[in-house]
């Protein structure tokens, strides 16, 4: 699966869709593929604040538990309850219905520091596939 051009990316394998001062955050295809079958998601509630580079949630596969990191500072305005209920959708549609949280951004300049699709694709490589 190629990484959509309209998204921004982090080196910790999250994607970011920017829409004004609200961003939607999800997990990249590379990340879900590395993790394998995803069995559990822990996400923050609306109103919780998140900070760039800090863990906002946990994703578990059969093998291991991993942190999910926030790309930006801000406040959570929605979390994807469907993904919490049925975490396997992250494996099925990482760039679609399996978004994780929506965040109201407090410092939009942080978005500029994120990777483009090309930069992320090069960073993630496909050596492990």
């Amino acid at each position: 699966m190629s990484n959509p051009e309209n998204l921004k990316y982090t080196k910790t394998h999250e994607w970011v869709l920017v829409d004004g001062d609200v961003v939607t955050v999800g997990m990249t295809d590379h990340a879900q593929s590395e993790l394998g079958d995803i069995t559990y998601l822990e996400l923050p509630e609306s109103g919780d604040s998140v900070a760039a580079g800090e863990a906002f949630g946990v994703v578990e596969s059969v093998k291991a538990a991993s942190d999910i990191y926030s790309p930006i500072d801000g406040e959570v305005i929605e979390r994807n309850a469907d993904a919490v209920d049925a975490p396997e959708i992250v494996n099925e549609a990482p760039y679609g219905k399996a978004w994780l949280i929506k965040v109201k951004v407090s410092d939009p300049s942080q978005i500029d520091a994120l990777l483009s699709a090309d930069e992320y694709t090069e960073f993630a490589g496909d050596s492990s596939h």
Partner: protein
Amino acid sequence: MGDTTETSLKRTPLYDRHVAAGARLIPFSGWEMPVQYEGILAEHRRVRSHAGLFDLGHMGQVDVVGPDALAFLQWTTTNDVSRLEPGQAAYGMLPNDDGGVVDDIFVYRKPEGQDGYMVVINAANIERDLARWAELKARRPEFDVEVIFLTDHLGMIAIQGPKAEAITQKLTSVDLAAVPYFSLLDAEIAGIPARVGRTGYTGEDGFELFPAKEQVGELWDALMEAGKDEEIAPIGLGARDTLRLEARMPLYGQELGDTISPYEAGLGWAVKLDKGDFVGREHMAKVKEEGPKRRTVGFKTIGKTGAPRTHYEVAVDGTVIGEVTSGAFSPTLNENIGLALIQAEYAGVGKPLQIIVRGKPVDAVQVKVPFYKRAGK
């Protein structure tokens, strides 16, 4: 992530097939082994419903032969090997001097007409087991016995699942329906001579096959081809671990170790105190008589939580009373299950536990084990 190119790792004869099948390979006990192919959940469920093929080329095997083979195994292992008829197998343990366990093992008495026993040991423990047996033999030089390491020329694969017998039957003239569980015979499978044990580590019916190492690939291909209609597929170590956990089979280094008594591990049934003297017997007898201070219990977590994992703390009313030895999301039950070694007074089916998952207590309840039992067993 995923750097699997370390040159010091050993590879089994099936390595190229794993790569071709798209396996993800990981270092495991000095070997580069497949952890998953299509995905752990799918592989696990395939073994429960159809059949799966496992590369066990990393496991160790020894032959124990000589006039005193039986006496030596009686003295150096926990189960009563004298009860085995030719071609029968039994689970047991190799004890240390202090009532703990060096390894857990499978002892097969060879079929009629052959001398001695084959013992299957864990990959991670091969060197310590061989050293232990050498040390014990030096301690009792009067035993006329040889422990011969086979792994360099013997291969090992397993076919497991409800369709395992039907698939294997297509490739042999031996009537497999008549082969009892926990037995060993010599057979030709797809024209390849192999020792065949009706044993396994998944909670399903099936066979463990021991052909010559150079014929492992040929046997693997034959079973894959014969099992096409039954939807056989290769299974990695990830599903092997969840399968054995659902069946409440111990993993050395987690449920078992140097400082855990078999009675604490819930494996007292494989210790036969009345069979005569054996290494560590006094310590084990004392634990049994006094009652183990710790017990291994099965539990499920309540509600939607993170999975319990090895070494997570276990608490009751805020006091730590032990730790998780194995835990996972159970692909068959679709809930979190685990085993924990806890202070004995807190053990009991129905009693509550808290599992500390990433610093937060999660409610759990003790349940009967095994978590999964196949129909008709």
